């Protein structure tokens, strides 16, 4: 049984008197432990879709099944890592990682053990007592990852998590994310603008078509051995294919915006 089964007839937002139809006929399944990347032109509804999967937005037509049950509200088993991260500035690195556990009433001793484990996994033990404004952007990224992983969710929903980083920090995190994914066997849905990133990380890549009213346009499987790097030969070939699909969609977006 797939861990996530998505069948959304349509999703729209109310927008001054009218409704804005974001996407329709989005249908796909994600297997347990699969790493799926979503790419698509800006505004096609990737963030919107992740919010639906997380249970943060129930207003859509259709249905999303998580382990066979209809998604109805949030559940700490499907955790989102937002693009803005949203680390709590009033807590230290360690307290941020412990936040969800504390809310789940995990006993203090167990909480401390889990925190230490993930602090080490993301290599931040030295900074555990720093406040969020005292650490670098890449470190923040890793704290957000650790905060989500510490909750031991079955599904991680990641929204362009590496977009604000420089190339070197990103390369390191690609490595790290693949390693962590290898250890923890999480199911990951990963949204990105960066096709290379998608091919480097994903088992499968879903391409959205251009807005308005986006659909799923194509799906690519990536069977390359891991760990992969951005420069690997196989990666570059697949990037070209995906990019071909995406480019025509991006062009449509611009045509639509500039010559409607």
């Amino acid at each position, binding site marked *: 049984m797939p861990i996530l089964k998505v069948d959304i007839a349509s999703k729209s937002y109310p927008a001054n008197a009218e409704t804005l139809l974001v996407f329709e006929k989005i249908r796909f399944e994600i297997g347990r432990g699969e790493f799926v990347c979503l790419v698509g032109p800006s505004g096609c509804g990737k963030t919107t879709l992740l919010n639906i999967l*997380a*249970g*943060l937005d129930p207003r859509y037509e259709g249905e999303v099944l998580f382990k066979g049950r209809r998604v109805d509200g*949030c*559940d*700490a088993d499907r*955790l*989102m890592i*937002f693009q*803005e991260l*949203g680390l*709590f*500035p*009033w*807590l230290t690195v360690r307290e941020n990682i412990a*936040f*969800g556990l*504390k*809310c*789940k009433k995990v006993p203090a001793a167990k909480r401390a053990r889990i925190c230490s484990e993930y602090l080490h996994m993301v290599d931040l033990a030295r900074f555990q007592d720093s*406040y*969020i*404004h*005292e650490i670098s952007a890449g470190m923040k990224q890793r704290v957000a990852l650790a905060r989500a992983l510490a*909750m031991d969710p079955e599904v991680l929903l990641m929204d362009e998590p590496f977009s604000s980083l420089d190339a070197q920090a990103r390369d390191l995190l690609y490595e790290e994310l693949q390693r962590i994914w290898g250890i923890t066997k999480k199911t990951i849905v990963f949204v990105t603008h960066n096709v290379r990133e998608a091919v480097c990380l994903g088992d499968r890549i879903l391409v959205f078509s251009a807005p308005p009213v986006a659909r799923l346009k194509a799906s690519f499987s990536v069977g390359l051995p891991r760990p992969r790097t951005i420069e690997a030969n196989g990666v570059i070939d697949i990037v070209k294919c995906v990019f071909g699909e995406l480019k025509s969609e991006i062009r449509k977006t611009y045509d639509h915006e500039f010559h409607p």
Partner: protein
Amino acid sequence: MTTNFIRSRIVPCALFYTALLLGWQVLVVLRIGPSYIFPSPLNVALSLAEGFRDRSFWFGILVSFRRLLTGFSLAIAVGGVLGALLLKSRTFEKTAGSLILGLQTLPSICWFPLALVWFGLSEGSIIFVVVMGSVFSFTMTIHAGLKNIPPIYVNIGRNMGVRGPALLWDVFIPAALPSLLLGLRQSWAFAWRSLLAGELLFNSQGLGFLLNMGRELNDINRVVAVMLVIMAIGVFIDKLVFGRMELAVRTRYGLKPS
């Protein structure tokens, strides 16, 4: 750092106040008014010392602070609940919101006639005025502070399965803490003003009463001395208590000092 602080803050301040006192003394020497209308710095200083020596000022401060703390705590409790309700319920916000705004614009002294009818010339009516003078301002700033936190924090809390009072306690309040402190500071100022206005009105002991006593005894030195005490307390609380608290929080949150 300390020498820098002395040079940049203490020295200019000392110069300024010396000049002020000198200017004042010059006006006294020029005899712009008789001494029972225009006091001299020396006489005010003597009256100040006398007030503290005969303990009347200490007593006044104590009485005033007891009222202030009682009234302000009540205002915080009630305002906190009202603010949380405004946040929680759209209907309450739409209906009671305008009323609370209206009540907030009402100058606190306008509550006094009502207070006198309800509580008479008593401790109760002054505390009532203090509460009424600050509770609505506190409600509004609390509500605004909680409402304007970045939505991402709320989404993260919800996503992690936090809801209800836990969400308020673990996410809303810490996220809004810098603006909550600002609200606290502002409401404190309202409470302080309401208190003194209330105390002026009858034989109530407290600082406002001391001020009025000075006038009734035609003791202008006493009047100015009490004014200085009131000002000093205001500055002390605002800068040292709230200012310090705010600075500590803003530093921890990585915000610029306001």
